[in-house]
């Protein structure tokens, strides 16, 4: 039995090869769409074509007004607790191997973050108004 692999095709066996193919296809599709639009797409100049869309009526006011910082706060809190969840998920995979010590360490991790949650709660960061 000849079990040796043809060296020219050895690259195709790696995982990275799939990734390279995927990247190449994505790049090709993106570039092809732009190029085809440029070659085949129609052109007609119209100054109104690039006006800002507001359901067909003239603009009421500028879009560049400052808006409340509550959105930023909600986003930051979400990120923090989402990362906590991201750490919990691999722990759920290996929790048998880590045993009681791992459980204790994870508990400490969760308690620290729960303390942070209580702080946010008491400071009113969870209130929308």
């Amino acid at each position, binding site marked *: 039995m000849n079990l040796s692999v043809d060296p020219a095709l050895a690259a195709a066996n790696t995982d990275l090869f799939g990734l390279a193919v995927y990247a190449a296809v994505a790049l090709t599709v993106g570039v092809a769409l732009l190029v085809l639009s440029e070659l085949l*797409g129609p052109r007609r100049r119209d100054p109104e074509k690039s006006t800002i*869309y507001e359901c*067909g009526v003239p603009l009421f006011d500028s879009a560049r007004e400052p808006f409340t910082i509550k959105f930023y706060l909600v986003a930051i809190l979400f990120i923090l607790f989402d990362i906590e969840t991201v750490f919990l998920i691999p722990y759920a995979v290996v929790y048998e191997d880590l045993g009681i010590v791992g459980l204790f360490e994870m508990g400490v991790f969760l308690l620290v973050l729960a303390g942070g949650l209580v702080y946010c709660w008491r400071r009113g960061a969870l209130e929308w108004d």
Partner: protein
Amino acid sequence: MGLESLFGGEGFLTTKINDLVNWARKSALWPMPFGTACCAIEMMATFSGRYDISRFGAEVVRFSPRQSDLLIVSGRISLKMMPVLQKIYRQMPEPKWVISMGACASCGGVFDTYTLIQGVDQFIPVDVYVPGCPPRPESLLDAVFEVQKIVQEERLDSGKHGR
């Protein structure tokens, strides 16, 4: 810039590419529904399950002119609405086609009054008119087929869309 100059003159290849592009455009006409009145109800019926328009490619119904190529004017257009319609039409990118659905959009319908535009074709170019008050969904589907025929006959370098 044009297809002809790219391929050095008309030929088999440009015709085939023309046909391919037209087929792609007609098979995926994205409607922009401009429904103002009763015809809009029939248009909604055409878009939903029983008279499904997405069988013919017109599935992506987005209420954004920038993401559409078929404007369906369904309903009465009043004095206050006409500048809005014109602005929406002009904000659509090329290529674009317009269906004037129903009697009111085509000619004012039964309402010959001080406030209703007697036919949107006085102020925007219309490709297909659909008679009816309101037209049945089958009539609107027929209008979409007519637009598809128009799209199939277009030439990429005809100058109709500025190319």
